[in-house]
Each structure stands twice: as structure tokens, then as C-alpha cells.
């Protein structure tokens, strides 16, 4: 009797549903627009002769244009007034110098603002290279490409005159204090590995938060790279003071590199452009122009 009212779940409907799902999912599948390019073609010859690294050969995002990224806001002394297009500040100047070395006139350079996570994510990038004090290390190099280093920075401890850190003369003096740094920076690694404060590091979202906490007395000192330390103690903190620079962990400081997409066809050319600028002294000149004389800070042991 009950069988008379049994509706049948038709297997055709199931198959139809499955087919529909398959179509929908296939339509959602992203296309990889970078996978088809062949990095070997343009860069196969020796890139150091410069012949293959001109705008006519480089597979940039936009043909004939070089798209350079940095974070927003960008800080002094790396960029001035959060405006990379004015070419002022060390990194803005380096970016235009690299572009010039590759054969791009200043008006063939476009800037884009890319936050940290967007710069390191595995998907297609919105820039040809990113300049934002990225420290080169081998683990990061598994996820992105780096150019040759354009600057080597050491880390420095910054405090205010009223803080207990102001009288510190050694790393041991700092260990019992509250030391902060920005997340995802080598400054934070320096706090953890070189100073190793007993209470652990205080980790901030940005250097701005760290500076505020320092002025509030919520931390006793913060660690930033040395050029930034000179800038914030002279221009931003009231009664700011550099305790000293940290003896680096052996590699001669943090090497800053331009960041490119993993296996970018541009990496070789950008690297050789940076090498050329190092060799002809341009980078040293820009350092002298934009970065304070960093040798004057005492080294903490």
C-alpha cells in the first residue's frame, strides 16, 4: 500500500545536479595568466650586457611601462611625504635609478600601493617589482624572487630619554625590559634572537603603534632598522634616543632586495641593474644623499 505514494528520486536528477556542479566549478577555476610566459626567451642571453634588458624585451605588466609597488603609508627616510612619484627618499630614488638603468624614462614608471600580505601572496602580482625594505632570506626566497641587495641595514634600539632603556649600554641591560617591534620584520627577529627579552617581545602591527606605545611608556624600547631609527629619533619622537645598534647575527646586517613574483621573467634583468648601480657608485651616492651617517651609532654587545 505505501508503495503507491513513493515518489522516485530519479537518478537522472542526480546526474543532472552533478553535471551542473561540474560546469559551475569549472567556470570558477581561475586561469593562470602568468603560467604561459617563457622566462627563458628574453633573458637567455647574458643579461649583463644590457642588450636584452630594454623596455622592448622586458615582459612587464604593461608594455613599455614599469610598474613599481610599495606599501602605504611609506615612511621617511625611504620615501618622502608618502609620495613615491617625487623621487625623493632613498627607496624612491633607488627605484627610479633601477628603472633608468633598465631603460625606462621617469614618465614610463607607474607606482602602485600594495600592502605586505598582497605582496607576498602566491597569486598573480600587480607590480613588476616591489620596493619596501624587504629583507632577503632563503625561506622567503622559496615564495618570491629577490633582486641583488640594494642596501644593507643593521637594527637599532630606540627609546626615549625617560625610559629605563635610556641608560642601557649592553644587550644584557635590555633583557629585563619590555622591547617592541613591528610584526613580520627582521627587527622583530632581532628582538627575539639577539636581545631575547625575558618577557618575550611586544609585537606591534606597525611602527606607528610601536612609537605610540613607546611614548606612552607601555614598552621601554623598540627596535627598527638603523636609518628608520635616525629618522624617528630626530623627527618624530619627543626626546627620542638611539641606545645603539645591534651587533648583527653574522651575515653583515639585513640585505634589502627588490621583491618580484616567483620565477618572474624580470628578476635577472632587475638584479643586474642593481648590480650595475652598485658597481658605478650610484647606490652609494644615493645612500649619502638620503640616509644619515649610520656609522655614528654605538654597537651593543
Amino acid at each position: 500500500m505505501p508503495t503507491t505514494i513513493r515518489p522516485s528520486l530519479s537518478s537522472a536528477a542526480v546526474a543532472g545536479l552533478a553535471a551542473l556542479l561540474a560546469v559551475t566549478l569549472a567556470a570558477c577555476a581561475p586561469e593562470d595568466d602568468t603560467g604561459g610566459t617563457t622566462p627563458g626567451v628574453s633573458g637567455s642571453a647574458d643579461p649583463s650586457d644590457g642588450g636584452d634588458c630594454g623596455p622592448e624585451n622586458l615582459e612587464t605588466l604593461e608594455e613599455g611601462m614599469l610598474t613599481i609597488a610599495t606599501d602605504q603609508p611609506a615612511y621617511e627616510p625611504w620615501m618622502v611625504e608618502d609620495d613615491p612619484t617625487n623621487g625623493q627618499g632613498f627607496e624612491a630614488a633607488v627605484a627610479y635609478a633601477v628603472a633608468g638603468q633598465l631603460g625606462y624614462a621617469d614618465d614610463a614608471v607607474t607606482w602602485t600601493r600594495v600592502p605586505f600580505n598582497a605582496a607576498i601572496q602566491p597569486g598573480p602580482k600587480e607590480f613588476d617589482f616591489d620596493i619596501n625594505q624587504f629583507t632577503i632570506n632563503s625561506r622567503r626566497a622559496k615564495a618570491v624572487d629577490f633582486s641583488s641587495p640594494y642596501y644593507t641595514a643593521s637594527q637599532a634600539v630606540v627609546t626615549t630619554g625617560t625610559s629605563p632603556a635610556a641608560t642601557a649600554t649592553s644587550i644584557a641591560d635590555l633583557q629585563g625590559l619590555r622591547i617592541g617591534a613591528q610584526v613580520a620584520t627582521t627587527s622583530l627577529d632581532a628582538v627575539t634572537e639577539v636581545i631575547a627579552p625575558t618577557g618575550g617581545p611586544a609585537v606591534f602591527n606597525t611602527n606607528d603603534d610601536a612609537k605610540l606605545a613607546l611614548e606612552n611608556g607601555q614598552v621601554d624600547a623598540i627596535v627598527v632598522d638603523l636609518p628608520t631609527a635616525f629618522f624617528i629619533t630626530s623627527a618624530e619622537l619627543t626626546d627620542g634616543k638611539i641606545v645603539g645598534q645591534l651587533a648583527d647575527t653574522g651575515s653583515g646586517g639585513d640585505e634589502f632586495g627588490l621583491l618580484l613574483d616567483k620565477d618572474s621573467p624580470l628578476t635577472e634583468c632587475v638584479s643586474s641593474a642593481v648590480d650595475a648601480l652598485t658597481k658605478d657608485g650610484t647606490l652609494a651616492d644615493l645612500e649619502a644623499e638620503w640616509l644619515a651617517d649610520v656609522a655614528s651609532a654605538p654597537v651593543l654587545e
Partner: protein
Amino acid sequence: MTTGPSAVELDRRAYRRSRARRSTLGALASTLVFALLAYLTITNAPGWPRVRATFFDLEIARESVRPVLAGLWVNLQVLLIGAALVAVLGLGIALLRTLRGPIFTPLRIVSTIYVDIFRGIPLIVVLYLVGFGVPALRLEGVPTSGFVLGTAAVVLTYSAYVAEVFRAGIESVHPSQVAAARSLGLSHRQTTRLVVLPQAVRTVTPPLLNDFVALQKDVGLISVLTVTDAVRASQIIVGQTFNFTPYVLAGLLFVLLAVPSARLADHFTVRALRRQQGGSR
């Protein structure tokens, strides 16, 4: 006369069983087909090898487990302390808002303003204002620790939400209940404690547990005040490796944390339903 079910009833039960089996099998089949299609679509995507290397790196997951778990412990501490304070403060504000009588007007206004403000401001803004603003006052004895100030900010925001949930529960108790209690000679205080609150709290237990699950995730936001919780611990490793696996790990751990609360909420909902409907299903 036999006491067992009739042949018709037995037939009916057998039919229901067969239908249940059938729909289980149908659900299983469609789930499997869907999972297979999703798997094939994702693993055949052109970017899959890089996604796998960036988000599912076992080696990085292994080295992240300890710091992320240590961070999760901080999350748990804030959660438990915060939830207890939120329950007390939220209930207190709800009681103030539901006070009758012209004398209590200032209390009602203050509690209404409190709820409006803290339900309106994004939690992250409250965290910045409390976490960096309060220490800037440089008052003696006021804590500067991110843990304390962060927990305070979370409690301020969530108490506003929970107060509204409690108020809804209190107002859902029928006025005749209060009238009956007062006619029995109970004072206002006794009526609230013995008649209104037990019924109100039972009604709102499921939404309260829902807020508890939401709180579980939002306690992670206090990392902006230098508290190294699970998310911040992950972020530190992401910064060192440019690999997002620690985030996936932290996400999984948060899910594990949320599942018991979600099941508990389901359990209470079902129980409340059963009691209210008294077997009429």
C-alpha cells in the same frame, strides 16, 4: 486483544525506515560527488602547486604548532575571563535598561547610551582607544598591559551585545507572570530573581552561546595591543617565511575550539524546544 502495534503500523514503520535509509544514501552519494568535483577542480587549477606550497606546507605547519598553540592558550584565557565579565556586566546593563519607574530614568538613559555607543563602534577601534588611549593618560595604577586593556576593550563591546540579548529575554517573559508573582506578594527584586530571570535566561541561552562563539574569534583582535595570541604567532612566522601555512593551522585550531561550543548551543536549543513544546512533536 494484542497490545503490540497493528500490522498497518508495523508496515508504516518499515516504510519510514526504508525512506530514511534511502535519503541517507542519497545524501552520501551527492556529498561524495561534490567533494570529488571540488577536489578535482582545485587540484587541477594552474596555480594549485603554488597554493599547496604556500598554504599547506607540512614542515612549516610542524614548526608552527608550538608557538600557535601557546598563542591559543592566551586566546583561551582572554576568552574565559572575558566571557565571565561579559555575562555579569551584560546582565547588569539589561536589568538597568528594564527598570520601571520614573526615578530610574537616568540609569536607563546611561545604559541605553552605553549600549548604543559600544554596539556601534567597531571592536578594533575600541581596542586602539582603550589600549593606547588609557595609558596615554599616565594615571597612577592604571594598567598598561595589552592583555588587561585588550580584555577590557573586548568586555566593553561584548557586554553591549549581550545586554541586548538579556533584555530581549527579560521582555519575552509575559507580563502576566510578573503580575501573578506580585499578586503572590513577591517584591520587584524577588519577582525578577525567581520568576523573570529563570525564564528569560532559558530563552536566550542559544543566542548567548552564539555570542560566545563569536567572542572566541574576536579575542584574537587583542593582538594589536602586543598580545601574542594564535593569530599573531602565525603572523610572525608568515613574516619570516612568506608562507601562509601558519594561518591555516590557526584557523583549524579555532574551528576545533568552536565546535564544542556550537554543539553545546545545539543541545541547549533542542532541550529548550523539547521543554517548551512538551512532547507535542
